[in-house]
């Protein structure tokens, strides 16, 4: 049982690692310009990234002058309409002529950016807020009000409002908004943990021995917080992935030009396989995150149970 679950968790971790790799090296996997080219006696390395203005002209030059070039496995751009005849659309294009496979590859980058950004915001805001609420009365009252306020506005409505006011200018705005909405949840979790650990005998003993509040937090609270926060973060990541996909599908997610899996699901003119793949990718990503969270939770429970059963 243990071995099997750890195998599952490892697979999940490997798949997620692959996703991050794809996101990081999307430019190497998929580019409308060559990765490496030599024309007119000059070497160009990754012209699509280093000199985007010249990339199109370079492609033309290459065709005319018969230079040397190394192409990416997928020769297409996720944002621009296909112009080059040499481009092959493995999964077809959408209604405005953008390559679907390229959008899937760069969609991974959008997904990773949004998710990590949202998590970062949620943790940076939520953990100190929750810790403060677990220790002070005023902060506690403030937190419960904030949780009430953010809980009363569903994510979809909050993001719709942001879109209506034309504030969604980049992926980061969506990430920050999703993170801020999740922060309340993180804060609530941290508050509960802080309250629980603060009441234990070893914290009492440390304080009796004269440990300063900072030392108590560093030595005793932080290690106990780490596990639950990690579990909540991976569950939160799964939730963010899903919500981002749903919002993008509705047209309320990342700005229209940014490739996104969710948006591909709803875009007109995409062939069924072009929809199935991003859909599957979303399912696999969320499932991996959920499996990871579950495994972490099991480990955490086992460690806690072990500690109690001396």
């Amino acid at each position, binding site marked *: 049982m243990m071995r099997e679950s750890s195998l599952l968790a490892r697979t999940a971790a490997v798949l997620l690692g692959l996703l991050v790799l794809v996101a990081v090296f999307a430019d190497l996997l998929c580019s409308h310009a060559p990765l490496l080219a030599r024309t007119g006696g000059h070497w160009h390395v990754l012209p699509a990234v280093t000199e985007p203005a010249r990339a199109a002209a370079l492609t033309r030059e290459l065709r005319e002058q018969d230079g040397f070039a190394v192409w990416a496995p997928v020769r297409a751009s996720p944002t621009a309409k296909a112009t080059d005849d040499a481009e092959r659309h493995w999964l077809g294009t959408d209604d405005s002529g953008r390559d679907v496979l390229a959008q899937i590859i760069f969609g991974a980058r959008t997904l990773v950016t949004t998710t990590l950004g949202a998590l970062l915001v949620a943790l940076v805001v939520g953990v100190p807020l929750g810790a403060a609420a677990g220790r002070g009365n005023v902060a506690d009252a403030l937190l419960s009000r904030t949780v009430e306020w953010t809980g009363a506005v569903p994510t979809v409505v909050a993001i719709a409002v942001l879109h209506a006011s034309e504030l969604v200018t980049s992926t980061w705005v969506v990430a920050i908004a999703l993170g801020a909405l999740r922060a309340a949840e993180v804060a609530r979790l941290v508050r509960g943990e802080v309250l629980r650990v603060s009441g234990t005998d070893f914290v009492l003993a440390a304080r009796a021995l004269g440990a300063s509040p900072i030392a108590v937090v560093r030595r005793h609270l932080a290690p106990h917080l780490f596990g639950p926060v990690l579990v909540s973060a991976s569950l939160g990541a799964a939730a963010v992935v899903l919500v981002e*996909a749903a919002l993008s599908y509705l*047209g309320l997610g990342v700005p229209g030009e940014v490739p996104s899996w969710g948006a591909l699901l709803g875009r007109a003119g995409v062939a069924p396989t072009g929809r199935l793949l991003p*859909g599957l990718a979303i*399912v696999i990503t969320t499932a991996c995150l959920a499996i990871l969270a579950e495994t972490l939770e099991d480990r955490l429970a086992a460690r806690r149970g072990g500690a109690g059963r001396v």
Partner: protein
Amino acid sequence: MRHALRRLLWIGPTLFVISIALFWVLTAGRGGGGLDPDEADEEHPFFGDHSRPRFFNSRPGNVRDLALLAMQSIARNDERAAAAERELVRLGGAALPHVLPQLDSLDPRGRGRVALALAPLAKRMNVGTAEDRASADAALLFWTRFWQDRAIDFRPAVAARAVARLGEKSTVGRRDDVRALDTFALPELMRKLTPVETEADAARVRRISMALASITEQPWRLERDAGLEAARATARTWQRWWLVHHSDYVTHDGAERVFAMLSDTEYGRWAADAVENQLGTSESGKSVRELWSTRAPTTTWLLGAGLVGGFAAGIALGLMGAARANAPFDRSLSALAIVLAALPTTLFALVLAPGGPSAQHAVGAFLMVVTAASVVARHQRSATRVALDQEYARTARAFGAGPWRLALWSFRASCVSVVSLAGTHLAHLLTVAFVVEHALHLEGLGAVTLKAVYAHDIAWLMALSLSVAFLLSLAQIASDLLLGALDPRVHLGLLRKRGAVE
């Protein structure tokens, strides 16, 4: 119970804070475009557009200030004089009590210019003759006399009587009475637009709208045999116009001025529109309430299906899974739950392309049930597992209780987590419901909201967020109450927090 009451009372401030925050965000992107972003300069060239400060107006609009400013500009004959002339005529009769007594304070040539500038107004008010409007001297003489004779008419009580008489029956004399008061009668005319319930009311609205249209030179007249609906729509159009422009035609004094500092703002306008026109008027011109009542049933049906069906199915599956923990059934159930929770409903929607509208509703409900159940089942399963690890469960097992019976038996202890989930999960279900509506082309709140986002429909978005916030708060309170009833410890904890119990 007291706890619930207190929470209910907290909803008010909560909604207020949310409304302010949302309004701030909604108007932030467009630099305070407000209710009428398209209504630009051409209508009011003298004072610019009608945008207001968003939340606090240190100088609320006021017909006296506007009129005197315009008057001075005309008297000086500066570069804005032409615009000021148009502005003064627009302000009309409401400006006369402020302008005419001040004429003496101007130098003779300025006086003449102002009097001449008011000539088109005299024509609109149907007073004086063409000669009176011909030259500056004649106009000045005419307006001086006019004020001597008619100053006594420019009082609210007189305006109220004239408008009331016009509302009852339209004769030439009564029409002229109101016309002679011009914009001074606007507040009374607006008041007489409501209520619109019977045919007689519709006739009154027709007479009033005729008078309004000729005074303000706006096109919204009511046709002779228009029905009740048309009368209502016309009345609403006028009320909306008044909401934006009323501060140009009235004076604020004393406490009213303090109030105007808050109400004569973008937020104040939205709030007044929301209160008067049933949650406000959406960009399409319909009242938000109307739109809401036609679209809400679909979304409610989906949410209800998710909440009731999803939770019932999820609890049942969770109990079964926990009873047979780690058996193949449980394993496959857990795996399925993970996948289903992850599977965006869109994928379903694409696979199950449905037929007629009733089939679509059924498919939509099914999708909601599946999505909700997959989350609930996982919660219920782990909660039951925890409950079955307790000593009393071990004791019961030692006495020979079977796994099914144990799982059912521990339900009262394990359902707490699912009940508290219900309060918060509803917000998430709303997102899912929007996605399902979009995928199945159901005409629910989601479709309207998407349209509202592109049309920058503040009224709808505000109404939607506030209604949803209100309902979610209620759901949260209900779930807390249920929690207290199910688990006395929660109740006791609350009492202890208040210091009622040691």
